[in-house]
């Protein structure tokens, strides 16, 4: 038998002690776990919402991304208005250790009053603007100060890189980037866009490591019909005239009579939209659409056109102008000169009021009023600019006995310069009144919403328009419009001199409005130009004040548009008779100067040196600038073609193509049949 082995006595004695300790430890662990779970329950379940929001406040920031306003460009794509992100400076006054010192430091740097800044720091605790939309230099200098409690915030600011150019058309925006005038106001919904949001997760150092974007909508870009070079030509000529005649103001409109597109709209006085607050309210008025004035003789276009259209007269019909005096309803109306018998064309050329009144009397009130309305007077042109006036035109039932006479001469009726320009364009293009338009296209990225021109409305027949054109050409050839005759081009137009109504309600003897409206060249007009000068001093007549401005603008604009000259009688004798090769020879020989080197077409400047290559009647002829673009191609008519067809045609002709929109071609630039150099960019607008 093997006896049972027993454990050592010492082991048996330790057993209860270890168990107790184990139990104690387990109990402690359980309690610890229970405590932990309880705490977790408290944090995760009970305090969940509050703690989550606190964490999100600390770790996440939602930033509203202000939409960038669309760019406004001219017809060539040159930016006229665009937005950039700039710094705005704000302060958290509670974080500023020494507000007076900070105010003293910031004041001189930002051009602010230190006391005013200090007052702001005292008035607010958590936030106050120091200065919004500061310049880069100011921001750099403030950053260099490294001030506690002073922070930067990005905001967008509108810039007008061309300064005063087309200021009245563009308008301006306020501090919060909303349009206040002009197209900025009129197309604010389109240009402004919609704001986006960005949720930024950031770490303890406020460095973002994740962001979620809710895309806003950038503003759409707007393409205008204006051409910045023509606009500059118009503004410069107008500015010079207003300064020369010390006038109160003036306006110039250049329009393409074939489409109604406004190529330039200039006003004086003007302002810089970058600093619009420094300008007077009068300077910010777009006279081209807001100014209602009595047009004077330029309004005779309606009376004479209507009489011709109604076959109540002929251009060669002789009318007795009664030595410049006519009595209507007991009132005597006097002409500016006593005329006897004059054919209708000379009535227009000499601007005889009596002759026109006689034509109006043949028409009668109803028909005259109907033609006035047909030419677009008395209603807005809807050119796309906000705040346009409709003019002043009473219905015939409110006319007095002499109203028919007054209105037929352009008195007792109020028109805007734009209405008058559109009316003359209707005569220029053969009798169709086009709605003037200032916006060609609206686009965002590749999405284009081209604005096709509105269909025109025939107001007079092509024959009447031609007869009117002949009469207006006569005005420039032999009549009151001689100073408007541009060198190298034929032109047609009408002068106008109207008295203003003074404070007493009577026609002023000292304040006049001088105007000239016309188009050139006569056979195929490329531009209708209106010039109105308000209250010129020293001279009052349209032929003296406004006609030379028309001439200056027409010469430069037609040259810029590459419109071939059509008036050889105004060319120097040598140039007219010398074959092209001779000029090339002159250029190749470098005769006289290197100025004869080829220059790009439409170049506005060229060295002028009085080198005589031929003399005519003892007058020294200035040096001739020879333009040679190499072989030219004729632009085809692309209307109605699809994009693919247009691309193929352009490839065959070696033309560069710029496509806008989708669908079928509705518009092209340059126009069909224009002769352009190979490689010229052809812009074609498509629409469905």
């Amino acid at each position, binding site marked *: 038998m093997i006896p049972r082995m027993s454990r050592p006595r010492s082991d048996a004695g330790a057993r209860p002690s270890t168990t107790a300790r184990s139990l104690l430890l387990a109990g402690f662990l359980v309690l610890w776990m229970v405590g932990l779970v309880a705490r977790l329950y408290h944090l995760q379940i009970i305090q969940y919402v509050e703690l989550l929001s606190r964490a999100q406040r600390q770790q996440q920031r939602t930033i509203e991304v202000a939409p960038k306003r669309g760019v406004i460009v001219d017809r060539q794509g040159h*930016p*006229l208005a*665009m*937005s*950039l992100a700039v710094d705005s400076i704000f302060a958290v006054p509670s974080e500023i250790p020494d507000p007076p010192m900070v105010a003293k430091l910031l004041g001189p740097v930002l051009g602010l009053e230190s006391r005013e800044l200090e007052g702001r720091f005292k008035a607010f605790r958590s936030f106050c603007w120091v200065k919004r939309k500061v310049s880069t230099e100011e921001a750099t200098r403030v950053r260099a100060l490294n001030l506690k409690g002073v922070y930067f915030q990005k905001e967008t600011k509108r810039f007008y*890189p*061309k*300064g005063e150019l087309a200021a009245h058309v563009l308008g301006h925006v306020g501090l919060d980037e909303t349009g206040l005038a002009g197209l900025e106001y009129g197309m604010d919904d389109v240009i402004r866009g919609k704001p986006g949001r960005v949720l930024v*997760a950031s770490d303890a150092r406020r460095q973002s*490591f*994740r962001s979620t974007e809710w895309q806003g909508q950038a503003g759409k870009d707007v393409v205008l019909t204006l051409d*910045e070079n023509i606009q*500059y030509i118009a503004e410069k000529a107008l500015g010079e005239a207003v300064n020369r005649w010390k006038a109160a103001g003036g306006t110039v409109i250049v329009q*393409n009579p*074939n*489409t109604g597109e406004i190529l330039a709209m200039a006003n004086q006085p003007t302002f810089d939209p970058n600093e619009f607050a420094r300008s007077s309210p009068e300077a910010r008025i777009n006279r081209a659409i807001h100014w209602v004035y009595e047009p004077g003789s330029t309004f005779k276009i309606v009376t004479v056109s209507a009489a011709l259209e109604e076959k109540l007269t002929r251009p060669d019909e002789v009318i007795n102008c009664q030595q410049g005096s006519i009595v209507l309803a007991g009132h005597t109306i006097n002409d500016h000169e006593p005329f006897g018998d004059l054919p209708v064309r000379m009535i227009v050329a000499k601007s005889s009021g009596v002759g026109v009144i006689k034509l109006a009397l043949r028409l009668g009130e109803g028909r005259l009023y109907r033609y006035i309305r047909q030419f677009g007077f008395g209603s807005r042109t809807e050119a796309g600019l906000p705040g346009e006036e409709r003019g002043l035109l009473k219905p015939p039932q409110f006319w007095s006995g002499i109203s028919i006479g007054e209105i037929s001469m352009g008195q007792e009726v109020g028109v805007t310069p734009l209405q008058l320009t559109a009316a003359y364009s209707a005569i220029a*293009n*053969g009798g*169709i009144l086009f709605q003037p338009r200032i916006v060609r296209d609206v686009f965002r990225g590749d999405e284009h919403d081209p604005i096709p021109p509105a*269909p*025109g409305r*025939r107001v007079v027949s*092509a024959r009447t*328009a*031609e007869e009117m054109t002949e009469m207006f050409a006569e005005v420039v050839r032999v009549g009151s419009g001689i100073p408007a005759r541009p*060198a*190298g*081009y034929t032109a047609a137009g009408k002068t106008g001199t109207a008295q203003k109504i003074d404070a007493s309600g009577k026609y002023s003897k000292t304040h006049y409005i001088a105007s000239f409206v016309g188009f050139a060249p006569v*056979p*195929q007009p*490329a531009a209708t130009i209106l010039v109105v000068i308000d209250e010129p001093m020293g001279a009052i007549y349209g032929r003296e004040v406004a006609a030379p401005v028309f001439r200056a603008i027409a010469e430069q604009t037609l040259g810029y*548009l590459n*419109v*071939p*000259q*059509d008036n050889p009688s*105004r060319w*120097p004798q040598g*140039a*007219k008779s010398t074959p*092209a090769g001779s000029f090339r020879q002159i250029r190749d020989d470098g005769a006289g100067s290197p100025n004869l080197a080829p220059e790009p077409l439409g170049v*506005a*400047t*060229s*060295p*002028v040196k009085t080198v005589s290559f031929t003399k005519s009647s003892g007058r020294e002829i200035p040096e001739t*600038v020879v333009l*040679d*673009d190499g072989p*030219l191609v004729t632009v085809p008519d692309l*209307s109605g073609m699809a994009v693919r067809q247009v691309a193929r045609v352009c490839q065959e002709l070696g033309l560069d193509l710029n496509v806008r929109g989708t669908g079928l071609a*509705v*518009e*092209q630039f*340059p*126009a*069909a*049949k*224009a*002769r352009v150099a190979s490689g010229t960019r052809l812009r074609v607008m498509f629409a469905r």
Partner: protein
Amino acid sequence: MATVAITIPRARRRPRSQPATGRACVTDFYFFVKRIDNSRLFREVDREKRRECFCLLGLGVLVFLFGLVIAWQHFQCVRYGYQIEESKAQRAAMEEWSRQLRLEQASLADPQRIDTLARQKLGLAPPDPQQVIRMDGARRGGGELGSPELARNFSALGGENSRGP
């Protein structure tokens, strides 16, 4: 195998002062030690248990690697988050810079500025229209007049506005 006998000496006698318990303890104990040699024995491998063990080990490694990948992925995600944000900021700055350059270009191309520079610095002046003669022959004397290089309103005109004879 070996057997060893060990003798344990008899218990000591009871001292007289101690009372008798009633039984005598006189038995000797012998313990035999049996030496066993298992060196020639082979432990039998339990393949099933071993597979289970390896499976468990593999699973553990997999879980560990998985955790490692998750952690790596998380940190990479955070790292790339920083990089993306940095790139976004860089892109925004570049776009802004591009816009600034465009603005500057537009300002420099201001017709008034160019006109002033041309006249004052370069001594240029606009040529008179009669000074400009086109070499393309589009219009010379009585030739047919070319149309102006302006857009025309196809839809509106439809040939209607062409001038009559």
